[in-house]
């Protein structure tokens, strides 16, 4: 099998697993998860083969793997679709394969495989726990298995198919198809526990919000296709095509943009929706309604990465027409939105109490980082942060899931259901109860904060800051540095509240380490959260620079036609990232280390009313509700329902029916009754009358018949005699 064929096959196993589980093995839990994990393993294997083969190719950027087939005839040419693995997608498929496989394994433990069925569990609701009696006749409440266990694996299988399709695509159309498959899956998974009102609302919110972005993205794709006649990346990124797009003004001269600028902005709006950037960020925190960590992790580490991946992929188009140092309009928009989102979401995350909600906002913030990095042209740094972030954020989400799972165990054990197992203020001291979770979470958290030298997050974040500094984008640099400080702060706040100190509730005292299916993925991801940073250490870094080659820069940078220059080393961004990372972590620890159960959040004292604003996420949900949702409801009711539907359409229908009611009696009285009935009655009644008048001929007396026969016989006889005798 050639490598090109293998690339085509990578997305298929999870898709097959989806169909097999949905159609055949839905009732068999073990079989379903075995099929799903087996499929993920096959895809993982294929991805690894492709990745390591790619490493062996010299100048891989110029000689990527890929093949195309004719798909749709358009006039006298063919629309081609195909697969492409170039350095960027090879690097991305590496992390996708690992994280997807880890999620699949983790889901087995998270959905309580091997636990008894709950007594009150119903489909569409999270499992409530089951009562068991142990050998000493003690009654225990233990976690119960998810009622729709197999369905979950089918959905994440389809999800993985979408992500793999997106990554291996060599054109925007199949990329968009994978993109939308994931949109559907996120809807299905957020609404997985559809028995909960909030889950249904969150599913609809996520679907509609991302759809807004997708519509613009589709417009961008259509515009690109009409302008160039192709959607294949390598054809779009040809020098002359890009130059042509950059020099053509956009349709209608819109805002003085070039065609490339217009397309770039439209595509980027798709990313705003998918990667939850301001102002379409509102769906991601609500997505935590789904089966918490697993789904959150898919959304945080996998699907939202797709949005960033797409803009990184389209970077040559986005930057088309850039003069030296100047930014194109899409890049300006991206650097503004990215930097703003990074800071904006980080401030919200500071005031959240729900352990996974903090991570959700942190995801938004980190995605903003990548977008901002790409906006200032730091191509490699954005890709690097995308990958390291995927690893450590996957680790953090799975870790938070593990924490919640452990807390739920405690809640069930104590029987006190008023304790929210997701609220960090109810935790504390989990370090001793859940050591593996603690250490891996610590690694993930430090990577997120950019703990110097050892964690992957430090290297990628530092590279972004260095790029912003080196190219003189001061506003972006300062915003991102501030966001990094807040990131380190809220991460330490999270770790301190959840793991350090003493247990603050009974549930936390009885928390329990999770099964190996959950801790194993944590350990694997923790290895990457540390180790992956070492492949991208800048060469001119003091002391350790150059010990390891800066492989990542060389490899991924090769994707672009013009190999990007590594930014010159400067000590200021390095000092900044050291200060913000360590400072944020230190501040977080100092603020929360003496926190006592039931006390006010120390931050609340410090910020006063601002805390409330942050906790309410700047009231964006309320704002959107007032500005968009309520008016839509109003239009739906007043205009569409009352006026359009009831007034115009129903009015017309009623008029027609009234007309028909009028015509009916006329037809009945003047046509049906006289003509149709008349003819029928004439034959019926006529036969009756005839019969009645003929009745007298049948007296029933045999002698009268004989008499009649005789008279007739004689009559006939005489007639013939008369005929005979007549001359």
């Amino acid at each position, binding site marked *: 099998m050639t490598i090109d064929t293998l690339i085509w096959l990578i997305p298929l196993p999870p898709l097959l697993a989806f169909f097999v589980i949905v159609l055949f093995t839905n009732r068999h839990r073990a079989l379903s998860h075995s099929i799903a994990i087996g499929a993920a393993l096959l895809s993982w294997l294929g991805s690894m083969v492709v990745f390591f083969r790619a490493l062996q190719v010299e100048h891989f950027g110029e000689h990527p793997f890929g093949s195309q087939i004719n798909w749709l005839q358009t006039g006298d040419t063919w629309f081609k679709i195909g697969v492409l693995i170039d350095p960027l997608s090879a690097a991305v498929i590496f992390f996708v394969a690992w994280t997807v496989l880890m999620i699949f394994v983790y889901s087995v433990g998270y959905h309580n495989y091997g636990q008894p069925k709950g007594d009150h569990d119903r489909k569409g609701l999270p499992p409530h726990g089951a009562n068991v009696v142990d050998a000493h006749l003690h009654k225990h409440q233990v976690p119960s298995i998810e009622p729709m266990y197999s369905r979950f694996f089918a959905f994440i299988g389809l999800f993985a198919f979408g992500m793999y399709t997106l990554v291996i695509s060599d054109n925007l159309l199949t990329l968009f198809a994978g993109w939308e498959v994931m949109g559907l899956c996120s809807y299905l998974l957020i609404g997985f526990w559809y028995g909960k009102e909030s889950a249904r609302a969150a599913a609809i919110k996520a679907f509609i919000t991302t759809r807004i972005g997708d519509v613009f993205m589709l417009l961008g794709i259509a515009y690109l296709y009409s302008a160039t006649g192709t959607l294949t990346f390598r054809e779009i990124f040809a020098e002359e095509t890009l130059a042509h797009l950059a020099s053509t003004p956009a349709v209608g001269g819109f805002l003085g943009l070039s065609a490339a600028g217009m397309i770039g902005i439209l595509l980027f709006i798709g990313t705003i929706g998918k990667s939850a950037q301001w102002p379409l960020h509102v769906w991601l925190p609500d997505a935590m309604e789904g089966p918490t960590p697993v789904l959150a992790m898919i959304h945080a580490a996998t699907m939202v990465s797709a949005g960033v991946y797409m803009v990184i992929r389209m970077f040559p188009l986005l930057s088309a027409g850039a003069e030296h140092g100047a930014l194109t309009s899409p890049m300006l928009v991206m650097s503004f939105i990215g930097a703003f989102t990074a800071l904006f979401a980080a401030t919200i995350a500071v005031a959240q109490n729900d352990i996974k909600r903090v991570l959700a906002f942190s995801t938004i913030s980190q995605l903003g980082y990548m977008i901002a990095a790409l906006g200032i042209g730091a191509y490699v740094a954005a890709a690097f942060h995308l990958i390291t972030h995927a690893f450590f954020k996957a680790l953090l989400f799975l870790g938070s899931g593990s924490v919640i799972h452990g807390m739920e165990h405690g809640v069930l054990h104590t029987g006190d259901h008023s304790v929210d197992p997701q609220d960090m203020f109810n935790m504390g001291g989990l370090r001793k109860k859940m050591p593996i979770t603690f250490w891996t979470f610590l690694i993930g958290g430090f990577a997120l904060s950019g703990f110097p030298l050892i964690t992957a997050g430090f290297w990628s974040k530092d590279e972004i800051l260095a790029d912003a500094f080196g190219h003189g984008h001061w506003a972006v640099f300062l915003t991102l540095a501030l966001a990094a400080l807040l990131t380190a702060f809220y991460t330490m706040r999270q770790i301190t509240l959840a793991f350090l100190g003493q247990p603050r509730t009974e549930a936390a005292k009885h928390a329990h380490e999770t099964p190996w299916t959950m801790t194993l993925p944590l350990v694997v991801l923790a290895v990457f959260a540390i180790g992956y940073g070492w492949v991208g250490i800048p060469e001119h870094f003091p002391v350790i620079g150059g010990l390891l080659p800066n492989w990542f820069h060389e490899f991924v940078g090769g994707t672009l036609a013009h190999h990007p220059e590594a930014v010159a080393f400067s000590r200021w961004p390095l000092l900044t990232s050291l200060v913000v990372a360590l400072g944020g972590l230190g501040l977080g620890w100092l603020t929360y280390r003496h926190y006592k159960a039931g006390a006010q959040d120390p931050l609340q004292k410090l910020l006063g009313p601002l805390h409330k604003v942050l906790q309410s996420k700047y009231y964006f949900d309320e704002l959107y509700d007032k500005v968009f949702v309520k008016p839509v409801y109003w239009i739906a009711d007043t205009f569409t329902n009352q006026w359009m539907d009831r007034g115009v359409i129903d009015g017309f229908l009623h008029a027609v029916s009234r007309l028909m009611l009028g015509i009916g009696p006329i037809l009945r009285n003047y046509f049906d009754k006289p003509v149709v009935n008349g003819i029928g009655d004439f034959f019926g009644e006529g036969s009756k009358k005839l019969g009645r008048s*003929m*009745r007298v001929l*049948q*007296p*029933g*007396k*045999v*002698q009268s018949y004989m008499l009649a026969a005789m008279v007739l016989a004689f009559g006939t006889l005489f007639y013939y005699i008369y005929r005979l005798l007549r001359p």
Partner: protein
Amino acid sequence: MIPLSWYLILAAALFCIGLFGVLGRRNAIAILMGIELMLNAVNINLVAFWRYRAAEGIAGQAFAIIVFAVAAAEVAVGLALIISIYRRRNSVVADDINLMKG
């Protein structure tokens, strides 16, 4: 030799007596007897014509014998019907038998 017309007159007279019996009598058995008379009047005609007009053949006699056979069968069936009707309705008056009244 007695002329043919005598036989014909006798046959006509017998036929008329039979016809009267059929039309005039109320008793079903009498009606049946009238029919027999009419049949025999026809037989006399058949035999008489054969004897005077076609004595070399046997068609006349053969017809007469067929009529006897038919008459015998008819009486057998007719009497059986009448007995059956009598059993059901306790009457052999022809006017009472009016099931076929329209």
